[in-house]
């Protein structure tokens, strides 16, 4: 992985011994926390009984810890000092070490995001398994206290939404693929990107360690005024989510600018790959809505620390609900819009057919993005004025139309094609099936009268898991299998891949389709104890959930194994026309030795025209 350019004589590299950046970051974070926390808790704002941790001290301590973490990981030499005009030599690490250090290479950053997301996914998944163990009994038997169970639900949801749902397909695959897909060797803001990725582990750790400050019981939404009434752990919820959303915001600024300004010659808007369209749409959503929720969380932190009465019982708790869902519903589309784009990216390649009705696919992505800001209050049918119900119900039902365009495009592409049933295409089909169930059940939830019964029950839990796991996680797996040869130059084992797909499909559909029934039978959310008549189905759901958890683990192991020692394959095993496949696999330090020029559509599999030309291509381009 060392950076030897063609023509350079291999220089004897001088090795410089340093402390591992991650360790330095942790050390500086710890020092920062202790110093600032003690300063606030003992000197600036001592409180009765001289507690070591107070609400203000832990907030300021956390800010210092995060700053210390980012500086220690390499921000000091690469960002802070240079911005004061001091240049310090800070050579990049090589080999596996570069993935655990500051790096401006968009491919390294992409992998760092993917690894953080995967870590978050399995930690939050473990939390889900603990929840399912508890729910096998109708009384408290696994968790000692109900509060701990509800807090586990909150940690599960928070980490899944903010470090997996919004990150894996955008910060992870987006950072890795988007510059390559548009024919650029770097993203627009590599230094910002290099730092933003390290906010993800910081955010995940903050949320996981929140129980140390006390059990918060609000679920992933931090609902007020309960959040003001809960123990202090909720502070780490706000701060952790702040870190995670800041990271996503930086990713979006970076990728939007990259797509706007770094496209290769000839890559017009008409030729822009679908995934780039998806990332553009999702980035605009992020740029509009993430600052909104960040400000809301800052207000909520001030509510506790100052304290102020914005969202307390004597303030306006409903305002928090509105502000949260104003972001919260676009959040759902932040998660699935890139997934739609990946369906439309993978399917023409597998179908060997031009992408059908491409413009309609793009219109769908853009309209979903715009309409998603008009539907938020369908999460609040149980507490809004009656007069507000119908407009939100209307937009909620209408948003299914642009969403359906993704299905129309894919089905049109598949019709009479020469479809290759590979592991990625299997995952995409499964994802489309599951998201369809999520969408169809959404029609019931969009109807206010039905919603008043289904809201806050397991029906809703099942519905949004079908949209998010079904839409996003299945597509994430499809994308990992599809681009695995790109990441590693190696191929997965087909049989294992099919087994993995069927395994998670059975586990997922078994567990979550039964949750619909459970919700209809009167199982409400956030409860570790429930009436005995619900126990039977809960045990079955738990068994399917364990199957699902093991299935994800199986796929993780298979992908990791394939990356390391799968069968070597040619550079472009899918014979795809998009630009990222025209580089070597795995790509070199600089993806393109010379800037490519795009001369046609990437989705024409009908004719033999080259859709691009790469002057002085160093590697073979197999077409």
């Amino acid at each position, binding site marked *: 992985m060392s950076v030897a350019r063609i023509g350079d004589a291999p220089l004897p590299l001088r090795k410089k011994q340093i402390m591992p950046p991650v360790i330095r970051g942790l050390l500086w974070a710890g020092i920062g926390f202790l110093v600032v926390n003690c300063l606030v808790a003992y000197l600036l704002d001592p409180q009765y009984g001289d507690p070591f941790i107070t609400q203000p001290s832990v907030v300021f301590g956390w800010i210092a810890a995060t700053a210390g973490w980012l500086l220690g990981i390499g921000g000091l030499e690469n960002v802070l000092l240079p911005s004061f005009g001091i240049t310090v030599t800070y050579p990049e690490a090589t080999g596996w070490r570069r993935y655990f250090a500051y790096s401006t290479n968009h491919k390294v950053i992409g992998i760092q995001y993917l690894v953080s997301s995967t870590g978050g996914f399995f930690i939050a998944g473990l939390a889900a398994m603990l929840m399912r163990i508890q729910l096998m009994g109708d009384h408290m038997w696994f968790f000692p206290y109900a509060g701990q169970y509800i807090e586990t639900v909150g940690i599960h949801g928070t980490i899944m939404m903010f470090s997996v749902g919004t990150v894996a397909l955008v910060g992870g695959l987006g950072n890795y693929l988007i510059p390559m897909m548009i024919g650029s060797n770097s993203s627009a803001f590599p230094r910002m990107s290099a730092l933003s990725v390290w906010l993800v582990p910081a955010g995940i750790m903050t949320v996981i360690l929140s129980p140390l400050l006390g059990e918060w019981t609000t679920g992933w939404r931090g609902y007020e005024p309960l959040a003001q009434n809960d123990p202090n752990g909720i502070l780490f919820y706000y701060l952790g989510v702040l870190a995670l959303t800041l990271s996503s915001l930086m990713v979006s600024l970076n990728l939007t600018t990259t797509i706007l300004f770094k496209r290769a010659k000839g890559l017009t808007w008409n030729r822009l790959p679908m995934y780039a369209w998806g990332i553009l749409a999702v980035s605009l959503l992020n740029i509009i809505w993430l600052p909104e929720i960040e400000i809301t969380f800052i207000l909520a932190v001030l509510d506790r620390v100052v304290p102020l009465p914005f969202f307390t019982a004597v303030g306006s708790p409903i305002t928090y609900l509105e502000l949260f869902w104003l972001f919260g519903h676009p959040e759902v589309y932040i998660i699935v819009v890139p997934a739609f784009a990946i369906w439309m990216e993978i399917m023409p390649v597998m179908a060997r057919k031009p992408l059908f*009705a491409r413009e309609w696919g793009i219109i769908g992505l853009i309209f979903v993005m715009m309409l998603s800001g008009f539907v938020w209050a369908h999460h609040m049918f149980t507490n809004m004025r009656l007069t507000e119900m119908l407009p939100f119900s209307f937009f909620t039902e209408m948003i299914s139309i642009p969403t359906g365009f993704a299905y*129309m495009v894919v089905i049109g592409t598949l019709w*009479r094609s020469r*479809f290759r049933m590979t592991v990625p295409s299997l995952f995409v089909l499964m994802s489309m099936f599951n998201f369809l169930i999520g969408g169809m059940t959404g029609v019931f939830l969009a*109807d206010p009268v039905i919603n008043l019964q289904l809201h806050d029950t397991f029906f809703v839990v099942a519905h949004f898991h079908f949209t998010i796991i079904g839409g996003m996680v299945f597509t994430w797996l499809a994308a990992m299998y599809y681009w695995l040869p790109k990441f590693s130059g190696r191929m997965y084992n087909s049989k294992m891949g099919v087994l993995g797909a069927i395994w998670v499909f059975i586990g997922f559909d078994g567990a979550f389709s039964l949750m619909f029934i459970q919700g209809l039978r009167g199982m409400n959310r956030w409860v570790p104890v429930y009436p005995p*008549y619900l126990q039977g189905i809960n045990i079955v759901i738990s068994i399917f959930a364990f199957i699902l958890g093991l299935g994800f683990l199986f796929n993780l192991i298979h992908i990791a194994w394939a990356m390391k020692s799968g069968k070597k394959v040619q550079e472009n095993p899918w014979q795809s026309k998009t630009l990222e496949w025209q580089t070597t696999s795995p790509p070199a330090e600089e993806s393109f030795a010379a800037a490519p020029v795009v001369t046609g559509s990437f989705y024409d599999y009908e004719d033999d025209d080259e859709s691009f030309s790469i002057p002085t291509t160093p590697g073979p381009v197999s077409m």
Partner: protein
Amino acid sequence: MADLLIFGVLWVVFSVLGELGVSAWGHNFYYYTASTQALDGLSASVFLFRFLTPIFVFVVLMLIFIPLRARRRSRDSVVRGKGARFNATYVTIWVTLSLAVNLLFFVHPTTSAAEQMFKEMSPQAEQHDLVVDVVARQWQWFFSYPQYGIQNALNANGNNVLYLPVNRPVEFVLRSYDPNHPYAVGLDVIHSFWIPAFGEKMDVIPGETRYMVATPTKIASTETNPEVRVQCAEVCGPGHPYMYATVHIVSDAAFKQWVKQQLKAGN
């Protein structure tokens, strides 16, 4: 053309099977209904099921049928697929139909069912309702009957209990505060008043008064069917799972009897 024909036949067959399924089991969508409101919600759901079934069958069949029909025979050579990159008829039908179906759903059942609910909650419709004041606190429900002078309805064990006469509209007046510690506004959080068998729930919000209307249609109780219970549906702290109360829907005579007994007990 053959593809189209086979697909059409399969679609019709599976849609018919689906509709038969909806006819047979659709009324179980709400497991247990004990109010007119639940029946309204149920009929809206069944209507949606009817219309969604052929759509669902269409997409799922496409997702299974096309890949199977179009599976490449040889996996090695790159054979290019045939087919249009645009088909105006297909796109027009798709867009028009999805628009039409969604507009239909918005008109019926969404708006029609909502209008029905608005009508039930109008002041004119509520003149002869039984009024039940519901107070939610962390983590308990209190019920009082101002028309009968019952301050705090309790059962023999001293637990809060809700008694309702059958076939008489009830207006629940929902408030969130702690009657035992009215100074402690820090304890007031959002709860949600839900009786699963009534098919509706309404959030209880500190500082605001909300209303919910229901007309019980069956004589039932929590003991005979656990879906007839008051359950807090919005997470409200570590006691949220324990925040429920028993419900008894009784005959008019039995309700009068119960009122007397409550007044005698000084509740």
